[in-house]
Structure formats: structure tokens, C-alpha cells
């Protein structure tokens, strides 16, 4: 290329701005030959001009200054550490506020505290951020169970069983919480599951809810029945006959539960109780506690092995399962195993071994009984409970006791064992315990035998001489008594004369009052509760949802296990015609289950994949009635439902195409029951516990 000047177009002499010259002379018309310096100053001392900057050069300068200013700002900010001296916990890199539920969190709650320098940040970035806490940090508070990171938070096997896949492998992928839940200003993290994320697994292809969505299952809208109630039967039969109790609206018996948005049945007193409250009191009482009959107690005394008083019954008595539990838990010796199974025990004449066994058994029962009387009610109830439920708290024990009164216990003791302490003391001392009069005994009593033996064996005893004298005194006393009786006879003659005079004057008036006509225990307990009848302790249901019955059913279902007595107790309590007639209506309570489902309640352990709130669908509008979605059926389904299942049409009839509003409108990802369970907080509000 030629170095010759190109005249007015030469880049070094022209006025025109050229990229290779940052400044040009500011003189118009006649620029100076050497032009301004590279820094933009005029070289002339006189007649100086103002050089003009090249546009490209100006752009470079601006660019350079902007970048330098920015870099300077960043360096200054990064160099200024926070109070803890950790540069990466400062506001420059603050990624935004946390959601309100995590508002009080510190960076270190989720992120590794080790990332506090450039080198640590680079190392963490290089290793893919494995130093951060991750999902494990979330799960410390948000309990999701052991399958938290699996799909829907349930075990792969459980999920596979709900699907058409045979292989469990597709369900074994794990997902981090942050894939769906974002923090730092990402708004409400509740509704962040997009349809495409659902379709990562659920790949059935359809256009919308109206078009192609699978129909609801046949059980939708009809939960498993736990109460046997027939709408059709009531409306078509009972209410037709007597319309006075016919409800006008569904809300007469049903109400919305605001917390869950589900519809429930109103309390018994408001709904069923209007007609059926009397049924509770018509139910039969049941035998709670009674000792077995021992036939032939006199044979024991004849054998010299009397056991004192023992309950005598008019009718045949049952050995209740509670009594058997009482035996088992009273530490009765093994040798009585056979006796403890029998409601009727018989003594055998001429069998002293049997007599001795029965005597020991009877006295052992009395010993246990008197021990119970010395303790409290809670101890007594514990002896009637299955082994696994001994550590129940007092509130539960109170329900199980039915507030059994001490007066009834004393009454039973008076009736069963009136000389309980005397008999036990004599038995302990090896003395005879006879109830029958001596003259009724066929042979000599044990006591007489003992006395005779003592007379024969020790005639020289000074003490016994004294006793003989004492006996003589007793004979004298008896003579005095005979004289006194003669006086009484004389007196009685006078009384007889007086009484004849009274009767002659009031012969026509009958006695109006008599203690012989007081109510029996059963009659008196017409409103329920404890009572005694014919030597047996009975209980009659007091009210609907009787706490005593419910507590026993709950205790036996949850703790009874394979216990025979538990099975018998449940057979008594859950009999359809038994106490309270519970199972006539409550079909959700069965001796085969381990939990009593008294009402239509959400099962806390059930996995939930959908959600629906009646709260958003119940209006005071004649166009939106319960029957808009729930269609009654006159003939119940095989499962006993008298409503047709809710169909998709119920949704689309009202919502139209708008119902196609995404999967999460009705479905929920976290199906695991753990998500609905609150983790107990570490309560230390007064600093009572050391950290």
C-alpha cells in the first residue's frame, strides 16, 4: 500500500472522524496538520481548538467506564463481609425473601455454612452443590415418612400395586423437594405442580377433563359405610307413615366440617336420636362380674374344710370374661386353672382332696377380693384389662371404670362374703371356718376335734383349768339367760293382750307401705348404670356413645389381640342386640378389626390422592342442591350404598369447560398420610429443659 498522502481524504489529515484516530482537530475548514494528541488535547499554544472525539472511541470509553464502575462496585461489596465475616451471607447475593412459612429461617438452615469464601463457593459449584442441605433439610420438619422422596411419598411397592405396572422399577426414582418447591420469592409454593409434571408418569393421553379424562370410580362419593342407614328405607317407609319426623333438607341431618370441607352426619341427638333415642334404653344389660357357683359347700364343712360364705344364686350364673381376666390378673395359683374356667363348681362327697382344693380356691378368691377392696378403682379396672393396656392413663381408666361406686362393691361384699375378714383371718391361723350351725353338721367340727385333742394331750395345763372354770361361769350365765327368757315370756303375754286390742280396732285397714316391695336393681337402673341383681354385677347402657362401652370396645380392639377373653368381651359388647345395640347401626365397628370406625371420619392413615371441598360447593341456591351431584337410588348397591356414585357430569354440568383447570384442581401429589401429621415441637418455653 502506498504511503503517499491521499489529499483531503487521507485519514490522518481529514476533518472527518476516522476509527483509527480517537480525536480530530476542532478547527473547521482548515485543520492543523499534526492534529490533536491521542488524549484529545490541542498541541498549539495559541489559537487552541477543542478537538472532537471519535464516536467509536467515545463508545469504547463509555464501555470501559461502565464495566470498571460495575466491577469496582462488585469488588467493594464482596470485600465487605457481614458481621460474621462471611462474605456470601450478605445482601448482594440475597436471592430474595423466603415464603412466609420460612420467614425466620437463616441461610444456614438450608445451605452449608462452609460456603463462606470464594474457594468454597467454587468447590461447591464444581461438585454440583452437594454441600447444601437439600431435601433432608426439608424433611427434618416436614415429616413425609420413609418414602418421602419417592413418587407421591408412598412406597414403590404400594404405588405399583395401584398401577397396571408389574415392575416396581419405574416407581423407584427419587425426586428432590426443590424440583417442585422453590423458595426465595417464588411465590406461593403450594400450587406449583404443573400438568406436565403429573404427565411425567401419568401418560394417558387426553385433551381435557371434559374430553378423555377417565370416569370417576364407582366408589366416588360413596365412602365405605360405617353406619347402616338406608335413606330409601326411611323416606319410602318410615317418613311416609309418619311425616312428622321427615326432614325437609339434607342439612337436617348433615353438616359441613369447615376444617376438612367434608360433609358429616350431625350428632345422634340431632339426627337419629329424634326417633331412636329410646332404642338405647331398650337394650339389654349385661353381666359384668360374678363369682362361680360352688355347689356343696356343706360337704366341705363336713370334711372339716369349710370355706365360709360363698355367693349363692337363684338362677344359673355366667362366668363373665371380666371375671376370668380378674382371675388371671389376681395371680391365682396354677392349680386352680380348671376351677377358673367353670361357672358351676361341685364338691364331691367323701373326697377330701377335692374339698381341700375347693377350700383353697375359695379362700384365694377371697384374699384377692379383699386386696382389691383395699386398693383403688383404677387398680381394679387394670386387673380387668388385657395385658397390653395396663399403662393406660387415668382418663382412659375413668371411662373404662364407668365410675363403679364403692357402695356397690361393699354391697356385693356383704352379699357374697359377709364375714370376709374374719374368715380369712381364721383360715390364715388354721382355724375352722364354718357357716352352718353346729347341730346341722353330721360329724364333729374341726374346732371340737381340736379341743378334744388338746384335752387328751395336756390335762395338767393350768391354763386349761382356768378355761374349765370359765366354761362353768358360762353355764351359770346361760341359766340366768333362761330365767330372763321366762320373764320375757310373761311380758310377751301382756304385749299379746295389747296387740289384740289394737288389731281389733284397726282390723279393716291394710298396710300401705312395705320395704318388701322396693325396686329390683334392674328396675331401678332403667336409665342405665351399675346395679346388682341376684348376686351379679350388671351394667346397663346409659346413653348413646356411652363412654364406658366405647372405652371397652376400643381397649379390646386395639389391645386385645388374640386374647380369648377379649374376643368374648367383644362378642358381648358388639352383639347387635347386646348392650347399647351399637352394631345395629355402627357397621364400622367389628370384632375382626383393630380399630373402631364409629362415624364417617377421614382415616388419618389413608393415602389421599384427591381432594374435594364441599365448602366451595354448598350454596343457598335452589339451583345447586345436594342432589345436583348425589343421585339417590331406591335399591341399595351391593355394598349397601343408597346413592349412585358421583359422576364427572356432575362437575361439567355446572363448570362446563372451566373445570379443565389442571390436574391439581382435584388431585394432590403428596398422598402420604404423614403430610397430615404434625410433628411435635420441642417445647421449652420456660427454659425448663437444658438445650
Amino acid at each position, binding site marked *: 500500500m502506498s504511503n503517499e498522502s491521499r489529499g483531503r481524504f487521507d485519514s490522518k489529515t481529514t*476533518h*472527518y*472522524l476516522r476509527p483509527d484516530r480517537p480525536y480530530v482537530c476542532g478547527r*473547521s*475548514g482548515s485543520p492543523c496538520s499534526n492534529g490533536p494528541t491521542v488524549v484529545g488535547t490541542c498541541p498549539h499554544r495559541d489559537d487552541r481548538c477543542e478537538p*472532537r472525539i471519535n*464516536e467509536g472511541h467515545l*463508545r469504547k470509553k*463509555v*464501555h470501559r467506564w*461502565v*464495566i470498571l464502575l*460495575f*466491577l469496582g462496585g*462488585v469488588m467493594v461489596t464482596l470485600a465487605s463481609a457481614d458481621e460474621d465475616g462471611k462474605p456470601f451471607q450478605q*445482601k*448482594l*447475593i*440475597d*436471592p*430474595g*425473601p423466603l415464603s412466609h412459612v420460612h420467614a425466620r429461617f437463616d441461610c444456614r438452615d438450608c*445451605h452449608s455454612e462452609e*460456603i463462606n469464601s470464594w474457594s468454597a*463457593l*467454587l468447590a*461447591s*459449584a*464444581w*461438585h*454440583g*452443590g*452437594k454441600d*447444601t*442441605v*437439600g*431435601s433432608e433439610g426439608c424433611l427434618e420438619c416436614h415429616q413425609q415418612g420413609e418414602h418421602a*422422596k419417592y413418587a407421591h411419598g408412598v412406597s414403590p411397592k404400594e404405588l405399583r400395586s395401584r398401577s397396571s405396572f408389574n415392575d416396581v422399577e419405574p416407581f423407584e*426414582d*427419587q*425426586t*428432590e423437594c*426443590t*424440583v*417442585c418447591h422453590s423458595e*426465595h*420469592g*417464588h*411465590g406461593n409454593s403450594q400450587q406449583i405442580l*404443573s400438568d*406436565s*409434571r403429573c*404427565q*411425567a408418569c401419568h401418560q394417558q393421553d387426553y385433551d381435557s377433563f371434559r374430553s378423555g379424562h377417565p370416569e370417576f370410580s364407582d366408589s366416588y362419593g360413596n365412602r365405605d359405610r360405617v353406619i347402616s342407614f338406608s335413606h330409601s328405607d326411611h323416606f319410602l317407609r318410615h317418613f311416609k307413615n309418619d311425616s312428622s319426623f321427615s326432614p325437609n333438607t339434607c342439612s337436617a341431618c348433615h353438616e359441613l366440617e369447615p376444617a376438612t370441607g367434608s360433609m358429616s352426619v350431625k350428632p345422634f341427638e340431632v339426627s337419629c336420636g329424634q326417633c331412636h333415642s329410646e332404642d338405647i334404653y331398650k337394650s339389654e344389660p349385661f353381666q359384668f362380674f360374678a363369682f362361680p357357683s360352688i355347689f356343696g359347700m356343706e360337704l366341705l364343712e363336713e370334711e372339716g374344710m369349710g370355706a365360709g360364705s360363698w355367693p349363692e344364686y337363684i338362677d344359673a350364673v355366667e362366668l363373665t370374661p371380666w371375671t376370668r381376666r380378674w382371675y388371671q390378673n389376681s395371680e391365682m395359683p396354677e392349680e386352680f386353672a380348671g376351677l377358673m374356667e367353670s361357672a358351676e363348681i361341685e364338691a364331691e362327697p367323701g373326697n377330701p382332696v377335692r374339698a381341700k382344693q375347693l377350700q383353697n380356691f375359695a379362700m384365694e378368691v377371697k384374699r384377692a377380693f379383699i386386696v382389691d377392696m383395699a386398693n383403688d378403682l383404677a387398680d381394679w379396672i387394670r386387673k380387668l384389662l388385657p395385658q397390653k393396656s395396663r399403662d393406660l392413663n387415668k382418663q382412659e381408666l375413668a371411662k373404662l371404670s364407668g365410675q363403679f361406686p364403692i357402695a356397690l362393691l361393699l354391697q356385693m361384699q356383704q352379699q357374697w362374703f359377709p364375714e370376709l375378714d374374719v374368715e380369712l383371718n381364721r383360715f390364715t391361723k388354721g382355724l375352722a371356718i364354718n357357716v352352718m350351725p353346729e347341730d346341722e353338721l353330721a360329724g364333729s367340727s374341726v374346732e371340737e376335734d381340736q379341743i378334744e385333742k388338746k384335752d387328751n394331750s395336756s390335762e395338767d395345763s393350768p391354763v386349761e383349768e382356768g378355761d374349765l372354770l370359765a366354761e362353768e361361769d358360762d353355764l351359770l350365765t346361760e341359766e340366768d339367760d333362761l330365767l330372763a327368757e321366762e320373764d320375757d315370756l310373761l311380758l310377751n303375754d301382756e304385749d299379746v293382750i295389747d296387740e289384740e286390742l289394737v288389731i281389733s280396732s284397726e282390723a279393716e285397714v291394710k298396710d300401705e307401705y312395705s320395704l318388701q316391695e322396693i325396686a329390683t336393681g334392674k328396675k331401678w337402673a332403667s336409665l342405665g348404670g351399675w346395679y346388682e341383681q341376684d348376686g351379679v354385677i350388671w351394667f346397663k347402657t346409659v346413653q348413646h356413645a356411652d363412654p364406658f362401652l366405647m372405652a371397652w370396645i376400643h381397649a379390646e380392639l386395639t389391645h386385645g389381640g388374640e386374647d380369648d377373653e377379649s374376643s368374648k368381651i367383644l362378642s358381648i359388647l358388639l352383639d347387635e342386640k347386646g348392650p347399647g345395640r351399637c352394631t345395629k347401626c355402627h357397621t364400622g365397628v367389628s370384632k375382626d378389626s383393630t380399630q373402631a370406625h364409629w362415624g364417617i371420619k377421614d382415616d388419618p392413615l389413608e393415602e389421599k390422592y384427591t381432594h374435594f371441598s364441599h365448602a366451595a360447593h354448598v350454596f343457598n341456591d335452589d339451583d345447586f342442591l345436594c342432589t345436583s351431584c348425589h343421585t339417590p337410588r331406591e335399591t341399595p348397591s351391593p355394598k349397601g350404598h343408597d346413592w349412585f356414585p358421583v359422576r364427572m357430569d356432575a362437575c361439567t354440568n355446572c363448570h362446563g369447560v372451566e373445570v379443565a383447570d389442571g390436574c391439581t384442581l382435584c388431585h394432590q401429589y403428596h398422598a402420604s398420610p404423614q403430610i397430615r401429621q404434625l410433628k411435635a415441637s420441642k417445647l421449652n418455653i420456660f427454659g425448663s429443659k437444658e438445650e
Partner: protein
Amino acid sequence: MNLRPPHMGILLLVLMILIIFQWFYEDAESRLVNSAFTSGWFLFGSFVALAIYGARKRVPFLPIGKTSYWLQLHLGLGLVSAYMFLVHIEFRIPSGNFEGQLFVLYSLILGSGFMGWLLMRAIPSQMRSDGMESNRSRIPDELDLLREMSDRGVKEIASTETSSDILNTYFEVIRPYLHTSCGLIPSRIHPDYGVPRSLVDKIQDYVSPAVLFSSEQFTAIHKLVQKKAMLDRHAVFQRWLRGWLFIHVPLTGVMAMLICFHVLLIFGFSVGEAK
């Protein structure tokens, strides 16, 4: 506004990039992985591709397509990257300090680029409408020359018998106008006199504009004033045509550095893949 039809090949290329991005993003969503990483890397790639346009201008000798095609690709990618950016930030305004700065910076770059495209489509036709062609770098010289000629012209007027009002008007109004900068907003031109309306208003304080501009003695200066008005108008348009680059280009450099820092922070503080 002069809108050119896009080059079909470039249009198809941009559409293909958009479809590929969407496919990868949907795939990430469906695989239950953090789709922000996918959109982030695509955004990073688009940013690099956009920046290459600037580098392309520095190597004009390489046979890698016309600059006009590159500009169309730059514009198309700019629009696609705007979509990627919105997807990446999940259609929300970031609330974090650093992310907020990135958001503002990106918005400024995108906005300035869009504004530049609008200006380049709209201004040239406006400049051509007055029939004058100007070289931006010559305008200062031409204005100097114009001022010199004006001063000479007024000396000739002063040497003849003339109204003092005309001279007063020249020295008080016309001459200061000839020495003022063009500013940033083009003046509104009076349809009868071809000079700025603001100037006509000021002249009215001294003399009737109709008298002044109809004076034969003042005809030469009138033409100079008209030329000054046109040169100013062109200078203003030139400023707008180039001015947006003083925002677009420097901020792009800043953005490049912030993106690197953003990537470092994201990987440093991210949870990582499921174990």
C-alpha cells in the same frame, strides 16, 4: 416504518431454535428435574450467540454470511431469548438483589435493542423526507461554515441602509440560534418559513417574521438559517440512531460478567441431583 420481510432461512433457524428449546424444557419438566437448569443453559447459549454478532463486525473479511443476515439472526435470537428469559424466571419479577439486577440489566439490554431496531426502521425514512443528505461527521464543519457565512452576510447588510430592527433581530435571535446545539428532540419546522417554530416566536418580539423573511437583504441569511434547521434535525436523528448503542453494548459486557457470576452462585448453592 420500513419493515423488511425476514430472510426465510433465518426465520426457520430461529423457529427451530425456539422449538428445540421448548422440547428440551418440556422434557425437563416431564422428567421431574429442575427445568430452570435447562432454560438457563439455553438462555446462556442464546446470549453467547447474540454477543457473537458484535464479534462478527470485527472480522468482516471472513466469509460467514452477510452482516444484514447476521443482524436478522441477532434480532430473531433476541426475541427468542426474551421468551427463554421469561420462562427461566417463571414469568415473575425476581425478588432477590442479584437476580433483580440481572433482570433489570437484561430488560435494559432487551429494551435498548428493541428501541434500536425501532429507531433504525423509523428514522432513516424521516431523514430522507426533507431531500437532504448529510454526513454526520461533516455536520460540525458545515455548521461552522454556515455561521461564518452568516456573519459575513450580516456585515453586508449593515453596510447598506437597512432597518435597525433586522440587525437587532439577527444579533439577538438569529445568531445565538446558529450557535446553539441541536439537542435531543428535533425542532418543529414552520411550514411557511422553513425554520423552527420556536425561532419564529422569538423573532416576533423584534420584527414581523413575514417582513424579515421577505426582505431581499435577508434572503441569504434566511437560507442559512433553514439549512441550520435541517442540519440540526439530521444531527438529532443521528444521535438517536447511534445513542442507543451506548446503552446496549456496555450493558451487554456487564451482563456477560454477571451471568458468569450467576452460574457460579447457582451451582455453588444448588442442591444437586437426587441421591
